[in-house]
C-alpha cells in the first residue's frame, strides 16, 4: 500500500504542474486587475503602464508563471519606467512556499487564505458531518421500508429539496428563523456573521450563528446523499451474504451496520472523497447570505477584482487536496472492500 501511495504521489507532481500552468493562463485572461484601480475614473494609460511595471504585469505570461513558480528575487524590474531594471523582486515563488501577494489586499496570499480557512473548515466540516449522519439515517430508514408511505414521503421531500436553489433555502431560513421569529416575539437566531462583534466569542454564540448556514448547506446534500445510501442499501440488502448472515443467527442491527452498510457505503465513500477537497473552497452562496467569513466569499471577492494570485492560491490548494483525497479514497476503498487490491 505504501508503494501505491508513493507511486500515486509521484505521478501527481507533473499533473499539478500541468494544472497550475493551465490555471495560470486561464486566470490571466479572465479580467483586468488594474481596471478598477482608478476609482470613479477609468485607470489612465499612464497609471496603467506604471502599475503594470510595478506589479510585474508587463512581463510576458511565461515569465509571470516562472515568477509564480520560483520567485522573482533574481530579476530586476524597471520601477521608474526608464527602460532599465532597477529593483529586484521580493517574491520567492510557490516552490519556496510563497504563494505571492494579493493585488487587492497587498499582503501575502498565504495570510489572506489562512484568515479565511478556519471559518470555512468549521462551517463546512460541521455541515458535512451533519449531512452524512442525516443522509445515513434517512437513507437506511427508507431502504428498510421500500415503497412504504414513509419512504414515498421521504422520496418526495428529497426531490423537492434537491430541486431547490440554495439561495432560496438560505433566504427563507433567514427570514423565518431570524426576522419573523423575532418580530413574533419568539426565540430567534442571528441574521448574519460568525459571532456578535463586541461580545465574548463563546462556543454557544458561534453555534447559534452556525445553525442557519449549516441547515442551508445540509438540506440539499442530505436529500442527494440519502438517495445514494437508500439505493446502495437496497442493492445489498437482498444479497446472498446478507441472507447467510441472518442464517448464522446474527442480530438484525449487526447484519445491517456490520455487513450491509459497509458495502452499501462504497458509492458514498467515493462521493465523500471527491467532495471533501471542495469543502475548502467554501460555500459561495451560503457564505454570502449569512456573511460567513470563509473561503467562498474570498473566492468571489478575488474573482471580482481579478486578483490572480489569490485565485491561483485557492485553486491550487483545491487541486492539491483533490489529488490527495483521491489517493485516500482508493486507500479507504481497499480497507472497506477486501476484494479491491491496490
Amino acid at each position: 500500500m505504501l508503494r501505491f501511495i508513493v507511486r500515486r504521489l509521484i505521478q501527481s507532481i507533473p499533473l499539478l504542474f500541468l494544472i497550475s500552468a493551465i490555471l495560470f493562463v486561464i486566470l490571466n485572461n479572465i479580467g483586468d486587475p488594474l481596471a478598477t484601480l482608478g476609482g470613479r475614473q477609468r485607470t489612465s494609460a499612464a497609471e496603467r503602464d506604471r502599475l503594470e511595471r510595478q506589479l510585474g504585469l508587463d512581463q510576458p505570461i511565461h515569465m509571470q508563471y516562472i515568477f509564480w513558480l520560483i520567485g522573482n528575487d533574481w530579476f530586476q524590474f524597471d520601477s521608474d519606467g526608464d527602460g532599465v531594471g532597477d529593483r529586484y523582486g521580493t517574491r520567492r515563488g510557490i516552490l519556496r512556499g510563497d504563494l505571492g501577494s494579493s493585488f487587492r489586499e497587498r499582503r501575502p496570499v498565504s495570510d489572506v487564505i489562512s484568515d479565511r480557512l478556519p471559518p470555512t473548515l468549521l462551517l463546512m466540516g460541521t455541515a458535512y458531518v451533519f449531512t452524512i449522519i442525516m443522509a445515513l439515517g434517512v437513507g437506511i430508514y427508507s431502504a428498510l421500508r421500500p415503497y412504504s408511505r414513509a419512504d414515498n414521503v421521504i422520496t418526495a421531500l428529497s426531490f423537492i429539496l434537491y430541486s431547490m436553489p440554495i439561495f432560496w433555502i438560505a433566504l427563507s431560513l433567514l427570514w423565518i428563523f431570524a426576522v419573523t421569529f423575532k418580530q413574533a416575539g419568539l426565540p430567534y437566531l442571528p441574521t448574519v456573521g460568525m459571532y456578535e462583534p463586541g461580545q465574548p466569542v463563546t462556543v454557544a454564540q458561534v453555534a447559534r450563528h452556525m445553525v442557519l448556514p449549516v441547515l442551508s448547506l445540509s438540506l440539499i446534500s442530505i436529500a442527494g446523499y440519502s438517495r445514494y445510501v437508500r439505493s446502495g442499501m437496497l442493492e445489498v440488502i437482498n444479497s446472498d451474504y446478507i441472507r447467510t448472515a441472518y442464517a448464522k443467527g446474527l442480530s438484525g442491527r449487526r447484519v445491517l451496520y456490520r455487513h450491509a452498510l459497509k458495502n452499501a457505503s462504497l458509492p458514498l465513500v467515493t462521493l465523500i472523497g471527491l467532495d471533501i477537497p471542495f469543502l475548502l473552497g467554501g460555500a459561495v452562496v451560503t457564505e454570502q447570505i449569512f456573511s460567513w467569513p470563509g473561503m467562498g466569499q474570498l473566492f468571489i471577492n478575488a474573482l471580482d477584482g481579478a486578483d490572480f494570485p489569490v485565485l491561483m492560491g485557492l485553486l491550487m490548494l483545491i487541486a492539491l487536496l483533490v489529488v490527495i483525497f483521491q489517493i485516500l479514497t482508493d486507500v479507504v476503498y481497499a480497507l472497506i472492500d477486501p476484494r479491491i487490491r491496490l
Partner: protein
Amino acid sequence: MHFRKNLLGAITILMMVSMVLGGVGAQNTKSLSLAFVQEIDSLNFGMYSSQFFSALLTTLWNSPAWVFDDQLNPIPRLAAEIPSTDNGGVSPDGKTITIRLRDDIVWSDGEPITSADFVFTYEMFMADGNAVDSRSPYSLMESVTAPDSQTVVVKFADVYAPWLTSIFTLVHPKHILEPIFEAEGTLDNASYNRIPTVSSGPFVVSEWQTGNYILFTRNEAYFDEPAILDQIFVRFIPDDAAQVAALINRDVDLGIFIAPDDALTLQRNGIDIIAVNSGYNEGLYFNFREGKAPAIKELAVRQAIAYGMDRQGIVEDLLRYGDGPDDHNVVATNFWYNTPWSNPDIQVEEYNPDLARQILEEAGWIDEDGDGIREKDGVRLRLTWATNQRRLRTLVQAVGQQQLAEVGIEVQLVNLPSDIFFGSYGDGNPVALGEYDFWEFSTTPGSFPDPNHVYWTCAEIPSDDNPSGANDMALCDEELDALFQLQRTLADPEARQAIFYQIQQIMHDNVYWLPMWHDPDLYALSARFENARIAPIFQFWNAANWDVSS
C-alpha cells in the same frame, strides 16, 4: 428507531438551546454598527484602495486637510482655514496653494501633525517603490514643500481647478511610515495599510476580523471635540437581502446603497431612509463612433427618444422608496444636476409621444410597411440599448422599449455582466468598441463636488493607442471640447460656472447625453442612530458627533 429518535432529539435540543441563547447582549458602551455590502481591501484609501467603502471610513480614522459637510461646505480639519485668493492661500495665477495648519493637531500617539507629514504623503504617492492605485492629482504637482512646520506649499504645473476636492484627502504619519519605507523601499506591504497604527481622526482602528468586522474605538488624543460614541463596528454583509434582514432585526444601525424596493420594506419596519446626493445621475449615452450606429447619430432620433420616454412616470413607478407622494427619485435635467454648477434654464423634455413621432417623420423616418416600426431609405429604425444586469435597469429598459415602440422605434435590449459593461476598450468592452447605439448607467463628475469631467473630451476617445480612454461615446465636438479644457484652467468659480452652463446647453440642445434620473445614495438608519448627517463626500464627516439614543 432509537437512532432516529436520538438524532431528532439532538437536533431539537441544539435548535432550542441556540434559540434560547438568542437575543442581544446588554450594551455597556455607546456603540453603533454599520453594514457594508463590500469588505474593503485596505484602509489606506487613495494609495492602496479605490473602493467607495474604503473612502467612507477615512474620516473616522484620518483627518484630511479639510472635509465637506452635508451641504457641501468645506470645513477645515488639519488646515487652519480653507485656502482662497482672499486669504492668500491661492496665488493670483491659481497654480500655488498654501495650506496653513492648525497648531494643536496631533496623531493618536501624541506626536504633532506637521507639514512634514504632508510632504511625506506627497512623496509616498510619487515614489517608484510604491505601487499606489492612483497618483492623481499628485502627479500634476510640480512640488510640495514645507517652509515651516505649519505651512504646506503645493505648486501645480498648470492651474488645476479641482484641487479643493482632491488634494490631501488623507495625510500619513511620517514618523511611523518613513522607517518602513527606508527599510523595505516600499509601503506596499506595510501593515499600516490594513490596521493604521496611529490615527488623526476621532477614532482609532482597533481590530479587523477578516470577513467579519472592523472595530473603531474612540481616539482619546483627538485634537477636536472627542467622539461621543465609544466604538463603531463596521460589519461586512455582502448580501442585500441579508443586509435588509439585519437592519430590520436591529443588528446593524446603518445600511448603504439601499435599493428603492428594499427602502420601502425598511420604512414599513420603522427604519429611516435618507437620500444623499453624491453627484450621481443616471443617463443614456449615445454612440458617435465613426462607422457605427448611423441612426443614433441623427439628432432627430435622439430627440425622439427624449420625448418618447415617460421619464417622470418611470421614476414615480420604479424608483419609489417611500409611501409619500414625493418619495421617489426625480428626473435629472443635466449631468451636473443638483449641484451649484447646474444650469437652471435647462428643463426636462416633457413626455410627448406625438412630438416624438412628428420629429421622426420630419427627419424622413416613416413607417412604410405598416408594421409600427419606421424606416428610412429602406433601413429599419432598430436600436440597441445596453446596460448591466441590475434589476432596476432591466425594468426601465422594458418600459422604455415599449414606449419607444409606440413612436416607431424598435429597441433591442442588451444586458451585460458589470465587469464587461464597465470595462475599457482595451478590455474588449463592446460598449467602448461601439457595438451598441446607446447605453445606460449612473455616474458622477470625477472629482465631485468639483464639476470637472472628461467623458466628452476628444482626447479621451478610446482607441488602440488610448485603450483606457473614458469617452466611449467617441464624441468629438470641438466647441464642447474647448469648453471642457477651458473650465479646467479657470481659478475663478463664477467664470467656471458660466462655462459649465454653456457646456450643459450644448449637451442639451444636441442631446449628447439624456438624463434619466437623479440618483442619490439611499442610506437606512435605525431609529436609535442620532446626529447622522451623511454627506455626499466625506460621508462620515461628523462621526465624532454621532450618538445613540438609550
